[in-house]
Each structure stands twice: as C-alpha cells, then as structure tokens.
C-alpha cells in the first residue's frame, strides 16, 4: 500500500499550502522558462530579419486577426468557466462543477478547431513552417501552445469523468485538484494573452 504523505490535502502549517498547489506552481515556473526561451528566439530572429514578415506586408495582414481575436475571447471565456467550475466545488455543487467544466472543455475544443482552420488555410497556400522564419515562429509558438491546450483538455476531461469519484470520498482533495488544474489552465490562457498581440498584431 502507498504510504500516507502529509499535507496532500491539508495545507502545511508554515507555508500555508498543500503539496499539490506548490507542485503545480513549480511546474508553471518551468513553463514560464520554456515559453520565455521561445519568446527569446522570436525576439532574436525577428530583430535580425530585414523585414517581418519576410514576404512583406504586416503580421496583421498575413495572420487572421478576427479569428485570432475570436480565439482570444474563447480562451478568456474558458478561463472564467474554469474558475466557476472550481467555485462550484468550493460551494459544494458538483452538478454545477460538471456544467462549467464541460463548458471549459467545449470552449477549448472550439479554440483548437479554429486553429485547425487557420493552419489548414496556411498550408493550402503552401505556407508551411519551412516557408520562412515568420511562419516557423508562428507555427512553433502556437503549436506548442496548442499542445498545452490538448494537455489541459485531457486533464480536465479526466476530472470531469473518472476523477469525480474522488468528490464522494474526499471533496476537499478533489477541489484542490480542480484548483490546480485551473492554475495550469489560466497559465495557458496567460501565454496566449502575450502570443496573440506578439504574433498577430505587431
């Protein structure tokens, strides 16, 4: 049998947080460095470029700003639904939790579908990542972000389905898990908040 680890659910008396919350924040710190390195690459490559995009024109003419704006709104909405999912747990309402978590997942899928159309359109015009570094940067940054969205969808789907079993035996533990998943999800939103203007508008 597994040994009982202290402060898995209850917060530590000195730090004031349970282990899982500490763990997820540390993970997010590493993610800040991951995206930081990619933004650094973007800065370095772009400042050396004769023009950006290489083909001429503006980013906002090359990338679809209305679609990007729509997706930004979608992600922001998914963040509030994620908060509401957690809030429902705090208020003891598991069916509301299911509603808001399903909404979060649904909105995430909308985001991915929009990205699919954006990518498909680019590929249709033979604008692959190899076309030039403008597209290379665009595809890698949004692609890795997209991978993180998929990861979030998987975790959230787990919490919505199998994971809800924990609510019956240890609601506080389950609520902590939802909160930690929420922290991850908001971070993914946060990255997009910087990605969108950096890639689409500037």
């Amino acid at each position, binding site marked *: 049998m597994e040994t009982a*680890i202290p402060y898995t659910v209850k917060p530590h008396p000195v730090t004031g947080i349970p282990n899982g919350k500490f763990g997820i924040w540390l993970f997010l710190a590493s993610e800040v460095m991951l995206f*930081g390195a990619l933004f650094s690459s973007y800065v370095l*490559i772009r400042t050396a470029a004769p023009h950006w995009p290489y083909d001429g024109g503006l980013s906002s003419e090359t990338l679809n700003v209305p679609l990007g704006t729509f997706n930004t709104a979608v992600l922001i909405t998914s963040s509030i639904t994620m908060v509401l999912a957690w809030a429902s747990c705090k208020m003891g309402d598991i069916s509301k939790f299911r509603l808001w978590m399903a909404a979060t997942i649904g909105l995430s899928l909308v985001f991915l579908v929009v990205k699919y159309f954006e990518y498909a359109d680019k590929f249709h015009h033979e604008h692959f990542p190899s076309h030039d570094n403008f597209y290379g940067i665009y595809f890698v940054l949004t692609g890795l972000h997209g991978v993180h969205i998929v990861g979030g969808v998987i975790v959230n789907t787990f919490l919505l389905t199998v994971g809800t079993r924990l609510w019956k035996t240890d609601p506080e533990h389950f609520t902590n898990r939802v909160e930690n998943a929420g922290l991850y999800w908001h971070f993914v939103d946060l990255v997009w908040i910087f990605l969108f203007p950096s890639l689409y508008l500037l």
Partner: protein
Amino acid sequence: MNEHHSGNGHAHSHGDPGHHELPFWRKYIFSVDHKVIGIQYAVSALVFLLLGFSLMMLMRWQLAYPLQPLPLIGKVLGETVMPGGVMAPEFYNQLGAMHGTIMVFMGIVPLAVGGFGNFVVPLQIGAPDMAFPRLNMVSYWAFLPGGILMLASFFAPGGAAQSGWTSYPPLSDIAPTGQTIWLLAMVLLITSSLLGSINFIVTIVQLRARGLTFWRLPFFVHAQFVTSFLLLLAFPPLEAASVLQLMDRLAGTSFFLPSGLVVSGEALKVAGGGSPLLWQHLFWFLAHPEVYVLILPGMGIVAEVIANNTRKPLWGYRLLVYSVISLGFLSFVVWAHHMFMTGMGTTMSTFFQTTTMIISVPSVVILTCFIMSLYGGNIRFTTPMLFATAFLPMFAIGGLTGLPLGLTASDIYLHDTFYVIGHFHYVVAPGSIFALMAGIYYWYPKATGRKMDETLGKIHFWLSFVAINVVFMPMFFQGMAGLSRRLYDPTVYAHGRGVQALNVVISWGAWGLALAQIPFIVNFFLSLKRGEKVAENPWHATTLEWLAPSPPGHGNFLAEPVVYRDPYEYSVPGKPNDYSPQFVAEG
C-alpha cells in the same frame, strides 16, 4: 502513518488493515517507493557510466595510436565503424558526442540526483517518502526509455549523434538521423529531470520532520534543494531549443540556419534567416547551471562524509549554505563564457567575464570550509573519507584551471583545446565522481544492511586516484600547446605531434583507470551477500537517515522522527559519546 517494518525484511501488518503484499512488478519495477526508485536510478546510472567510459576507452586508442587497427575489438565492431579495424572519423565523432551526453545526462545527474537524492533526502528529513511518489515513478520511467533511446541511436543509419554533446548547428541541423534520436531522447531525459525537481522542492519544503528547521538541515539537503531549482528553471530553454532543432531537421525550418549556407558545394535549400548563436545561447543557458547540478550533490556528499569522519561539526555551516545558494543563483548569469569566441562585443563579454569571476568566490568558500573542517579533526580514513578528502585538491585543480577560461583574453588561446577538457574533467571525474563514490561506500550500509569491504575499497581508491591524475593532468599541457579538442588525428598538426607522446600516457592511464574499477564492481556485488552486517548507525553518524533500519522498510521510520539539534553535533564537550544524533531526545 508508519507501519512496523524491521530491518531484516519482515512486514508486520498489525494496526494497518489495508496492507497487503504488492505484486513483484509493482514492488520492484513500477515502484513508488523512493528507496526502490533511488536504487533503480543509481544502478541504471552506474551502467550508463560504465558504457560512457567504454566509449572513451575506444577513442583513446585512436588518440594514442592514430589510424592503427584496434586488435579484436576493431573486428567485433564491424566494417562500418571500424573499416579494417581502424576507427572511422565519423565513428570517432559519434563516440565523442555520445560519451559527453551519456556521462552528463545518463550518468552523473541520474546518480547524483535521481539515485542519491531520491534515496537519501526523504530519510534525512524524516519523511515517509517523496511528496509525489507516483510522479517519482513516472520520472524514472521517462529517464530509462530516454537513456535506452539514446543508446539505440548508435544503430540509426549514419550512426549516433556526432556533433558534440553540445549539438551546435548548422552541423547538427544537417547531421544524420542519430541527431534526431538524440533530440527526442533529450526531451524524455529533460522531462524526467523537471518532474523530479518539482518533487524534491516540495518534499524538502513541506515534509520535514518536527524540529527540522531550515538551519538544521544536513548540507546534503541544502545542496539537493539548490540543485533542484537549477534543474527546474534551466532545463526548459534546452527543451525549447530541442524542439526548434527538431523542426529544423524534420520540418525544414531555419531557426538555426543562416541565409546563404553552402554545404558540400551546394547552397542549402532552406529559407534561412536563422541564427546558430541562438542555439548556443539556449543550450548554454541550461548547460552552465547543469555543471553546477553535476557538482552540488557531490559537495553535499563530501560535507556529510567529512563531518562524520572527522568527528567534529562542519566548519562554517551557515557560510556553506549561503555559498551554495549564491552559487546556484550566479550559475544562471555566466553562461556566455562558453561563447567568448563567437564574436560578442566587449560589453557583453565583459559582463559575462565579471560574473564568471564572481562565481568563483562561493566555490572557493565552500572548498575552504571543507578544508577547515579537517583541521583538528579525529580523522578516520575509511574508504568514503579517502574519496571525500581526495575530492578537495582535485576540485581545487579543476576550479583553478577554470579561471584562465573565464577570462576572455586567455580564453582566446585556450578555448576548444584540451585544456578545457582537462579543466572540466577534473571537476567532474576526480571531483563529482569521487564524491559519488564516497556516497556509495557511505550509504551502501543503509541501503543494503551490509558494509562494503574496506580493503577492496582502499585498493579501488588508490588505483583510481593515481590513474585519474595520469589521465587528466597531461591534458592541460596538450591544451597549452594548442591541441584542439574533438580532433580525430592529432598528428596531422606539428603542434599535435609535439604532444602526441602524452596521448599514449593518457590512454594507458585511462585503460588503467578502467581496470581500477574492477575491485569496486566486485566489492559492490560481493558485499550484498558477504558484507559485514550492520545495524542502523554503523558510522556513528548524526543525521536522520541513520535512525531508520538498514535497509529501511516501507514508511522508513518505526516511529515518527523528531529532531532535537543541529546536524553535526560531533564531539560535544561533556557528552559520553563523540556524536549526538539529531534524533535522540536526551539533551
């Protein structure tokens, strides 16, 4: 919380109705117990260290006897890599790149952090396990496939990665398939490290026993704590860079390919606009803190062994803690000293030169505290102590020889020569590896319930100590003579021919060093069955791990441990024993 589990393997389950024996695959393969995982890491890492060492022994033949066929082994390796028994240049490059990669990422870090960290840290802080046992298991099972994938790359068409462990583009961008496998394996290894570092930080902060305040932690725990932050924050940029290089290689992007690149007389058909220097920045952003990851756990081990075998407290404990923290912090701001020759302007190179000089201060403080710890001690030269004591001058040589490399003016001459190889091997080989050896001899009794044989240990030490200096000392002279590293045949240059005799000496030293490990390997296995049996605290040490049974059972301690005093209360005046353990209540 803690089940009753005596040291000789009987599990008593009274008072714990949920306990049942786990099936073999969950107890020993996919275990979530930090001790099992620690041993898994340690054994895997030792095997990888041996493999990585073997690669170098092959290279040493080519360096000592360039273009000579290698008897027996040459035939076994086949005509592709050793045509006519003579090492192919591409194979030499593969051996070089993989030697570095394996030793750093699959050898030292998994042994120091995955092995020693996992096994010792929860015990030293009085915890029943790590904060996230299942995450710990996932970490190991990301590491092992990553390591195996890395080794498998030798069988890819064109062979393994062959652009140095540093994988600089543009060369690495256009290298054969083995490089792609290198990148994928690195992603697995990095993931393993990241997950592990999260576990260590949360464990050390949240799971300390009652009474174990920050300033009562053994120095080993402080060292592992800082190391974990280095792994957490420095690895992601290399992961990002690996993704970019994979894109260059697989999707035809030009993140690292400049415009107008010509390969074998033909212009490369890529968009260009990329920067090889971008890779170097992202790589070294990790790789410099990485070298502190390589040394810090070793310093932690040396601290434990010295305090225990001098029977007196560590000299300057608080100074050591402040130093190791500043060392970790500073390690993030020195990386471009690996790039002095890339055409940096004087402002930035001065910045990095300055930070590099500053970082030598906490290093020297740590070494000084260790040396001062010996003064006036009642020294027991056990095998761990021999390795720990030898660490001191060896690390000193390694550290001092880093100075001319950190100064831009002298680095102009010494960069990419054998001087660099001598420098970093001194810190890593008779530095880290000696410290890790000390750790193995020191904690083997805790893990197995038996001591390793002292005679074999001393033979292992003295042979290794002599051989390792024979191997690495001459390299400084080769470097000062201008001999480049990563050179297939040194004798093509006059200055290479001038120091070629040393290559013969070094190679025989290396083969001797290999033989010197035999007493260790024999000892390691023989002692499992025939070693002197011990109880909880055979070394009469003071830190918490020596409260648990040897080996500790599930849950580690028979009762919840409490800490009453500082970690190194040796030879306290007025006490009956020359050691007052942290966990014993009497004042």
